């Protein structure tokens, strides 16, 4: 490279830099955000709204909006004037942040001078080739610098490069997420604007701890909202709204099962699709935090949701004994359908979500840990489960686990075709035993799974219908007691 070429290139680069950092129109900084509102959805999306002010002359200007999250979605940015203000006309928008990853930082220095290497092997030069080192062990693109003498040096091995110094970085790079607007400002003076955008990385979760006191008639409930900020930005004194959506609930439900994703039809779609993509993003429940929240990048903050020192709880035992094997499903006239059973009687705790007991608010779904406090004040973790959303006024149920000393057996004692392919009758015996040292009332849940048209033709115990194709018996068992329940169901189709 001869002298004139070098001079030309230096002039070109300097001109480019001047064009970018010495704009033809005025450069204006927007103020720090105020009145920040965060609507945090349960599927990793957050809608942010903040008030900013801009002081500038009327006419075109470059406006720099800083103090933004790195995970902002530039396509979602909206600007609106506050009441009575004139509209800011954004002609062009860029979202700049050079410290997000190394490649972007290097790209900013393409054509600029930098130093590569460590110790005595430092090479200075102009960056002319961007590396793609991540394709190890055979990187296709090396880092290439053009040295002042015109020679090119390629770094195929990142270990050789080791250390890259970016001279004058403070003036060249965007070291924080910045929105750059070329805008037309309608009037001189200070204007307030309402900035809205969508971002990733802010999430919330509800967490509950229930400590059962000895005797298990009362429990201490502590509900918390946890906010985690991985958005790459910080927020100060923000008003926070938490939103539950159908999509979030579907996603959360699927996390707990190993089953494949259910499919369903969307209106007008010819084929059923993944339920998570069809479920709506409309909020089904909103929770407003009643305090302002400051969240620095990377912070996790837990705030109170509900706290009751003496929550009355009742313990219920449920035997729902039927078990289906892998190969007999929905075959209403299969002789073997539903003849398998398990013997576990489950323990549930039930509480009322009312103002009388110190609650009376919509409890969002969340992770629940159940502890038992012992007579010696020690603490035992009984288990962890997901508490389904409990609406104000409803009752919540917590599954504790298998009941010690309670056992059920469910045997099919008869099966007959009353009218082949149209009418079938099936009889069951449910045997319950209590080897614990306490009285127990067991709710026996029976699902009439063969068909929706059924009739209980015989039963030697009282029962009630508790849902579609579901009946429930109750059996009181003394310590050491045994009891059997018999019933016959007739299906017609």
């Amino acid at each position, binding site marked *: 490279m001869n002298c004139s070429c070098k001079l030309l290139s230096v002039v070109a680069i300097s001109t480019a830099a001047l064009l970018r950092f010495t704009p033809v129109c005025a450069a204006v900084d927007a103020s720090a955000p105020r009145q920040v509102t965060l609507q945090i959805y349960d599927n990793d999306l957050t809608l942010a709204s903040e008030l900013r002010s801009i002081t500038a002359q009327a006419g075109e200007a470059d406006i720099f909006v800083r103090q933004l999250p790195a995970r902002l979605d530039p396509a979602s940015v909206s600007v609106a004037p506050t009441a009575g203000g004139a509209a800011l006309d954004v002609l062009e928008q860029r979202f700049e942040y050079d410290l997000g990853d190394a490649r972007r*930082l290097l790209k900013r220095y393409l054509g600029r001078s930098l130093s590569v290497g460590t110790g005595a092997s430092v090479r200075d030069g102009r960056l002319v080739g961007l590396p793609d080192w991540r394709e190890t062990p055979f990187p296709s693109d090396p880092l290439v610098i053009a040295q002042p003498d015109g020679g090119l040096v390629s770094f195929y091995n990142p270990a050789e490069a080791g250390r890259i110094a970016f001279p004058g970085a403070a003036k060249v790079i965007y070291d924080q997420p910045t929105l750059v607007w070329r805008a037309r400002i309608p009037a001189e003076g200070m204007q307030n604007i309402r900035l809205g955008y969508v971002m990733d990385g802010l999430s919330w979760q509800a967490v509950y701890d229930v400590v059962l006191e000895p005797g298990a008639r009362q429990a201490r409930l502590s509900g918390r909202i946890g906010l985690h900020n991985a958005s790459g930005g910080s927020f100060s004194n923000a008003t926070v709204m938490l939103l539950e959506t159908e999509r979030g609930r579907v996603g959360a439900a699927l996390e707990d099962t190993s089953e494949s994703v259910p499919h369903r039809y969307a209106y007008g779609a010819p084929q059923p699709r993944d339920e998570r993509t069809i479920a709506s993003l409309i909020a089904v429940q909103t929770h407003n935090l009643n305090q302002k929240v400051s969240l620095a990048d990377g912070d996790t903050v837990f705030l109170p949701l509900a706290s009751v020192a003496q929550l009355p709880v009742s313990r219920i035992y449920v035997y729902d004994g039927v078990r289906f094997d892998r190969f007999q499903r929905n075959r209403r006239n299969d002789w073997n359908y539903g003849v398998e059973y398990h013997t576990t009687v489950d323990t549930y705790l039930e509480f009322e979500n009312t103002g009388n007991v110190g609650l009376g608010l919509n409890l969002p779904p969340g992770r629940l840990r159940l502890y038992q406090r012992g007579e010696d004040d020690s603490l035992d973790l009984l288990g962890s489960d997901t508490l389904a959303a409990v609406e104000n006024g409803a009752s919540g149920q917590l599954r504790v686990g298998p009941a010690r000393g309670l056992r059920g057996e469910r045997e099919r*004692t008869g099966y007959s075709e009353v009218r082949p392919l149209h009418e079938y009758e099936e009889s069951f015996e449910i045997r319950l035993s209590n080897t614990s040292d306490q009285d127990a009332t067991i709710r026996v849940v029976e699902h009439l799974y063969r068909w929706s048209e059924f009739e209980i033709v015989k039963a030697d115990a009282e029962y009630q219908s508790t849902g579609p194709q579901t009946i429930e018996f109750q059996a009181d068992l003394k310590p050491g007691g045994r009891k059997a329940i018999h019933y016959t169901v007739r299906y017609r189709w």
Partner: protein
Amino acid sequence: MDRRTISHALPAALLICIAIGLFAAEDTRAPLRRDVLIGQGSAVFSEEYLVNFTRLEDTLYLDLPLEADPGSLFVGDSRGTIQWIETRWTASRPPAFDGVLELNEFGIPRAELAPPRGALQVECTLRADSTRPRTLYAIYQASNLSWRARYDMSIRGDISNQLEPLSLDLEARYYLSNGLARAISATRVYLRGPERLNSEAGSAPAGPGFLLLDTESPLADRWRPGRPPPEVPQRYTLSDPVTLAAGEVTAVRFASARRIPTDRVYVMNSEDIPIGSAPIWKPLTQILSFRNTARVGLGLPLPAGVAWISTGGSRTAFREEALLNHTSAGEAIRVNLGPATGVLGARRSYGRVEAASGFTEETIELKIQNNANSAIHVEIDERPPAPLAWDMVRSSHTYEMQDRLLHYELDIKPRSESIISYTIRVSEPAK
């Protein structure tokens, strides 16, 4: 400033410094007491702290392990007079960009490899109704802690000689594994574990003989190991405070007994013995059984664990490794010694016949041969060979039934054979 003033000022300054030091030391308070409940892979910490509440709103600074789960921490007092306001886990901030990018050998910036993560320091803001010191509890869960139990058993006496009485020495230890990057001192340690160890977890269904089964066929379910029923976890208490070193396994002895008298029991399990029209003789399983009572030096809940069984008073020969299930105080502990010598069993079916009552019936015979020179006690767990519904019609011996499994017990004289015969009524689909 004169010398006298300085002589007065120096102690005062010293006192102020000490006071500041004390105050600063209180920022991260050590717990007054710590209980730990260790499970398999995680633990629940229950700690007590003294908070002075010199003003109505105070902050409790906790120094928690990196492995603590932020969502699990909750703080309060036993009387419910403290209002918890906020808990903040502050992340460490990455250093500001100074114009230099340090790369690793893969070209990845070093800062990217060490992303900021939650610091150890946690701040809990609390509000009280009056200014006085209070004892608060903090409960949280952390991963990387686990435990297991191991038993060393040594059998005294000749196992093969039926006439020789056997006794057993037992030593049991907990192995507590602390995978945290810090040591743990706990006033009380509790352990939580399963009732039984599942040795067959993840094993593929085993087909009978040379028959290879498609695991996705309905037939395969016949040989697929059944899913174990859900368990009620058991809890064990260590008698003394324990300190667990960081990243190490600590062994704690919890039971030791010598010369425990044991009984031999022979078990015939229908799962192990094929059934057909002609008897196929198979050896019964020999079990050593002894009671977990204080009289023999035990009498405490024993957790499920691996037992190393050797023979001879000084553990001269290693015999086998066995799995022990949880044993409550007073219950029998059973040690499986494998196939017995000279005690055989067979099952025979006489086929299904149309009985006079109009039902289909099947008679099964269980034969047990005792070729030893002494009487033996046999337990039989028999599942009738009817995959469909069945009812017992008659049985030559009394039995107990649980989960459709028949349980017989009988004593067999030396060099003799016993036969159990039972008839079941088999339900078949209506035609």
